[in-house]
C-alpha cells in the first residue's frame, strides 16, 4: 500500500505525477494572469476612486462594491454561462448554429482577475493616500510632467506601501484558481479529483494537492517578501 501510494503520485508508468505537475503549472499560470489583470483593473479602479469627478468615483465604488460583495463562484458562473450564451447568440446572428462556449481558462482568469482587481483597487488607493504630498510637489517643482511623475515618483512609492497587502491578495488569488475546476479547467484541484476517482485514493491525492498549494504559496511568498525588503531598504526602519 505504502509503495503503491508513492508510485501513484510519482512519475513512473502508473504515476499521476506528470499530470499533477502540469496541472499545478496551469494553476500557477491562471493565478499569474488573474493577478496581472487584477493589477491593471486595480490601478484603473484606484484612479477612478481618486478622481475629482463624482461620476468616475461612483463608477469605481460601484465596481469594488459589486465584485467584493458577491461570491466569487457566482462571478465565475456568471462569466462562464453568461459569456457562452452571449457568444452563442452572436454566432447565431452571424449564421452559425449550435452551442459555443468560451475557453474556460480565459473566462476563469477574467472572472478571478475582476474580483482581485476590486481588492487591489482598495490597496492601491490607500497606498496612494499614504504618499506624502511633498514627494509629489518636489517632482512638480522640478518641472516633471504627469508621466514622469507617475513612473519615477508615485508608482515606486505607492508600490512599496501596497506590497504587503498585495502579497495577501496574491495568496488568495492562487487559492481561488481552484474555482476554475468547476468550469472544466483541469487545474490542480480538478486533476487531483480525477486521479482520486480513478484510483479511489482521495486522501492521497487531495493531500498531495494541498501540499502543492502550500509550497507554491510559500515559495512565491518568499519572493514577494524579498521584493518588499528591497523596496524598504531606504526606510531605515
Amino acid at each position, binding site marked *: 500500500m505504502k509503495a503503491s501510494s508513492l508510485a501513484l503520485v510519482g512519475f513512473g508508468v502508473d504515476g499521476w505525477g506528470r499530470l499533477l505537475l502540469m496541472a499545478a503549472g496551469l494553476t500557477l499560470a491562471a493565478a499569474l494572469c488573474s493577478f496581472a489583470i487584477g493589477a491593471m483593473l486595480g490601478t484603473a479602479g484606484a484612479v477612478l476612486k481618486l478622481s475629482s469627478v463624482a461620476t468616475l468615483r461612483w463608477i469605481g465604488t460601484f465596481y469594488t462594491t459589486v465584485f467584493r460583495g458577491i461570491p466569487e463562484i457566482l462571478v465565475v458562473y456568471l462569466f462562464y454561462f453568461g459569456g457562452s450564451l452571449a457568444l452563442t447568440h452572436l454566432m447565431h446572428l452571424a449564421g452559425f448554429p449550435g452551442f459555443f462556449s468560451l475557453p474556460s481558462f480565459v473566462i476563469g482568469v477574467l472572472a478571478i482577475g475582476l474580483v482581485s482587481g476590486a481588492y487591489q483597487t482598495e490597496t492601491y488607493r490607500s497606498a496612494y493616500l499614504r504618499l*506624502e504630498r*511633498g*514627494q509629489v*510637489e*518636489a*517632482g*512638480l*517643482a*522640478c*518641472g*516633471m*510632467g*504627469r508621466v*514622469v511623475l507617475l513612473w*519615477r*515618483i508615485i508608482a*515606486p*512609492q505607492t508600490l*512599496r506601501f501596497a506590497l504587503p497587502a498585495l502579497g495577501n491578495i496574491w495568496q488568495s488569488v492562487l487559492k481561488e484558481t481552484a474555482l476554475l475546476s468547476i468550469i472544466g479547467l483541469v487545474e490542480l484541484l480538478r486533476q487531483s479529483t480525477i486521479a482520486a476517482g480513478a484510483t479511489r485514493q482521495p486522501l492521497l491525492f487531495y493531500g498531495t494537492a494541498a501540499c502543492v498549494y502550500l509550497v507554491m504559496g510559500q515559495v512565491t511568498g518568499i519572493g514577494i517578501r524579498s521584493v518588499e525588503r528591497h*523596496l524598504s*531598504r*531606504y*526606510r*531605515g*526602519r
Partner: protein
Amino acid sequence: MQPAQSPPMPSGPAPSVITAQKLTKRYGALEVLRGVDLEAHEGEVISILGASGSGKSTFLRCLNLLEVPTSGDLTVLGERVRFRPKGDGLRIADHGQVNRLRSQVGMVFQNFCLWSHRTVLQNVMEAPIHVQGRNRHEVRDEAEAALARVGMADRAGYYPSQLSGGQQQRVAIARAIVMQPRVLLFDEPTSALDPELVGEVLKVMHDLAAEGRTMLIVTHEMAFARDVSSRIVFLEQGRVRAQGTPQALFRGGMDERFDQFVSHFMRQG
C-alpha cells in the same frame, strides 16, 4: 556673516525674473492673498517676511504654480503664465509652459521633500535626466559637483532617511541648483530644523547669495534676512505692508507693524 555681495550690475535696472501683479488667492471664504505685487530682478535676494497666516508661503508657492492664484497676472522669466478661467478662479492653461518654467525655477521646501526611495546622488540626478533629458554621465559629474558645493559629496550613496535634517536640506539645495535655475525659491528652509542645524543651511544659502543668484526666501530668520537680502518684503494679511532695503527697514521707524513684528521675533529668538 558678511553681507552678500551684489554681482557687477550693468547700467540700468537688471531684467525682471518674476513679476507678480495683483495676485490673489482664496480658499473658499478664506482670502489668503489680497492682491500682491512684486517684481524680482536678476541678482536680487528678496526675503519675504510676515507672521504665520500672512500668506507668504502661499505667495511663494504661486510663483512656481504649486498654488494657482485665484486672480492676477504672473510673468516668469519673461513669459506670461497662461491661465484659463475656472469657476470663480483660474486654472493652468498650458501645462507644458508651466513645466518648462518650473524646470528653470528651483524650489527648496520646508520639509526638504527629498525622494525617499532614491539615494542622495539619485535625488540630484533625477530631474536633469528625466526632465531635461540629459545624458547620465555628464549629469553625474554635475550632480557630484553640486553635492560638493553644499558639502554633501561624501554622502552620495546615502538614503534621505539616513541623514540629519540639515544634511537633507543641503541635498535639497543641491537638487535645485543642479538644474541651473534662473531663480531659487526657498520656503521656510530652516523652520523644520533643530536649532543646531540651522547654521549649516544658512551658510550654504549665504554662499549662493554671494554668487549673485536670484533668490526669493520666505523665512523667520531675521538676522539672516537682514544680512543677506538686497530687499525685504513684509506681508501682512495677504498684502505687501512694507518693503525696502534691510538697512531701511531694520533701522526702525519705517513701518510700525514691521517694527512690532521684528521685536516680537527678536524677543523669541
